[in-house]
């Protein structure tokens, strides 16, 4: 079970199901993520406006829940929405939540395979 949820979270999704980072309606930054690992990296360097735009719309939570099928991480991200974070505070918190989850799942994945 743990190995199953871990593999879902660390796998690569097809290109058409990647997360595409926009800064506002219809304005695509050129950055995308096909895995939780890549998503974690993008959160660190994408334009801050993009993080604010997607968090406010609930796009991160939706992608994590529907595409990565990680309800725990989706819930954590939804919780962030309530704090109305902006700027670097948002980047730091989102980074923290995502990287913590990634490390946990990646660790579970490797221990399950060993």
């Amino acid at each position, binding site marked *: 079970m743990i190995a199953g949820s871990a593999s879902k979270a660390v796998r690569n999704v097809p*290109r*058409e199901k990647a997360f595409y980072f*926009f800064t506002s*309606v*219809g304005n*695509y*930054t050129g950055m995308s993520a096909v895995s939780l690992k890549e998503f974690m990296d993008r959160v660190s360097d994408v334009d801050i406006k993009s993080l604010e735009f997607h968090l406010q719309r609930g796009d991160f939570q939706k992608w994590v829940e529907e595409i990565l099928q990680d309800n725990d991480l989706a819930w954590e991200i939804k919780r962030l929405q309530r704090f109305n974070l902006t700027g670097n505070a948002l980047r730091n918190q989102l980074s923290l939540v995502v990287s913590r989850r990634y490390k946990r799942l990646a660790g579970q994945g490797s221990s399950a395979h060993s």
Partner: protein
Amino acid sequence: MKFKNNSVSLDDVDLKILQALQEDSRQTFTALGESLGLAHSTVYDRIRRMEEQKVIKNYTALIDAERVGLKTITALVTVCTEPKETERVAERLAESPEVLEVYTSLSEELLIIAKVVAADQDSLHDFIANSIAPLRGVLRIRTSIITKKLKESLFSINNGSKGLRL
């Protein structure tokens, strides 16, 4: 009247017929003939020839979406692509019913410009995020939502601009 490249030759009578059709394409051959001083058979022959030559591409209806209660938004979407993928991306866009017009442009970089219509901002964003951004070769997208339309017209055969006189 000569047109260059793979165009066809039209005389003044053809142009008068085209102008009259652009004003009202539902006129009968008889009515057109009477207004232009031509036999209806002449009008018929000329129109048929111009249809066959694809000078007349279509007869259509211009619908005022607002009058029928259709609330839509229109946006001009500029897509920056890798040069080798531009043509393919443009063709994919052209296949979408949401896309009304597609152009390619060479400015500082290769761009595709598309006119897109959607029910609202959410639908517009979903279309761009799900149908344009994932296309291979798309580098960036800029979208401008149109807030006011000051003019919309089709190319007129009797265009007043000197540069367009035939």
